[in-house]
Structures are given as C-alpha cells and as structure tokens.
C-alpha cells in the first residue's frame, strides 16, 4: 500500500541536543509538509517542499530546519530542542493540487 512512513514513532531527546526526524513516502507526491501538533491543538504548518523548492512559514522558529534529498524522503532537524518543542511532528504529502494531504503516523517528541 502506498503510504507515508515516519521514523522513529517516539523520540526522547535532551534539552539542547539536536534531533532529526525522518519521513518517507511511496505515494510519489511532489509536495511534502512538516506540521507540529501539540495536545488538543490543530496541526501547525512549519514548512513544505514543492519538489525541491523549500517554503518556510513566517512564524517557524529558526531552530527548525528541513532537508529533502530526493522525492521520497524528507527530514526535520531541530537544532537545539527546548521544552516547548515537545509535540507530535506530522509529515504529510500531496500532489500538485495541495488540497488532499496524506499524513504519516507522526513522531512524538519528548524533551527532557
């Protein structure tokens, strides 16, 4: 089945210790997104890649970076995690239309 895969599902990191979350997709979609979702809140878009073009949301902290080495993979790097960065991180993909987005299962990040 075509799908969006995220690894790891659970990640624990220490305050200030860099962490990388990964996402892969078999849908062959052009667009990949990273969202942050905190408890009982709506997902918040951090950035997205349209093919190789990177689009950062204006309010995404500089602490968050992303890489997309090829169509299938996308990474979220958090350079110096703070306690406030503890959240579920969701990867999503879409075709060029952008409206129907397909989400992965998420990575739950804990910062100690």
């Amino acid at each position, binding site marked *: 089945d075509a799908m969006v895969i995220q690894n790891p599902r659970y990640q624990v990191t220490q305050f200030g210790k860099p962490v990388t979350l990964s996402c892969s997709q078999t849908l062959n979609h052009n667009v990949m997104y990273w969202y942050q979702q905190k408890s*009982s*809140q*709506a997902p918040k*878009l951090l950035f997205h890649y349209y093919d190789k073009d990177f*689009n950062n949301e204006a309010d995404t902290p500089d602490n968050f970076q992303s890489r997309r080495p090829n169509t299938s993979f996308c990474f979220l790097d958090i350079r110096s995690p703070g306690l406030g960065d503890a959240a579920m991180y*969701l990867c999503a993909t879409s075709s060029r239309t952008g409206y129907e*987005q397909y989400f992965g299962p998420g990575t739950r990040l804990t910062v100690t």
Partner: protein
Amino acid sequence: QKEVEQDPGPLSVPEGAIVSLNCTYSNSAFQYFMWYRQYSRKGPELLMYTYSSGNKEDGRFTAQVDKSSKYISLFIRDSQPSDSATYLCAMSTGTTDSWGKLQFGAGTQVVVTP
C-alpha cells in the same frame, strides 16, 4: 478570533446514533473543505474532501458546505465504537499565495459508546 472554529467536545453518542459535527469559519475565500479523522496518538486520516458548496456522501459519511453561512458539517450515520476519534475540519482558499496551506480547526473529540 480564529479563522476556523470547532467545538472541542467531547461529543458522546450511543452506538447507532448519528454524529453531527460542524465548523464555522470567517474567511469567505475558503473554497476547499476537508474532514480528517485522527485516532489517539496517530496522524490525521483524510475522510472527505469537498469543493465549494453542496453535499458529498461516502458510505456512512456525509459532508455539507454552506458558504453563505460559512458553515460546514460532517454527519456519521450508524455510528460505531470504531468511529471514536478526534475529527478535524480543514480548509483552503486555493489561491497561489496560500497554496498547500490548510487552516485546521482544533478538532472535536467523539466518543461512541456500545
């Protein structure tokens, strides 16, 4: 004021009842409307997708959009305990400057009791 308002619930219904969910929004430019289902500790799953006003039916699910009232609804017929989840509405203007940007509601938690 948030662009998209959604009652957080929880909404508790007995098995077999109709679940009625809704969202209101303020931006009249929204044209694309989605409903996602999110189980606890999982990613959202796209349920329904509607363009502009009207109704759309898919099995036990019916989505309605009333652009004149800036109001969208999702109905789940013959609800099952497996429908217990958080339901998020999402919408987009579809314009170039907001391409790919979905405005989500905060989600309504639904509990279907056997």
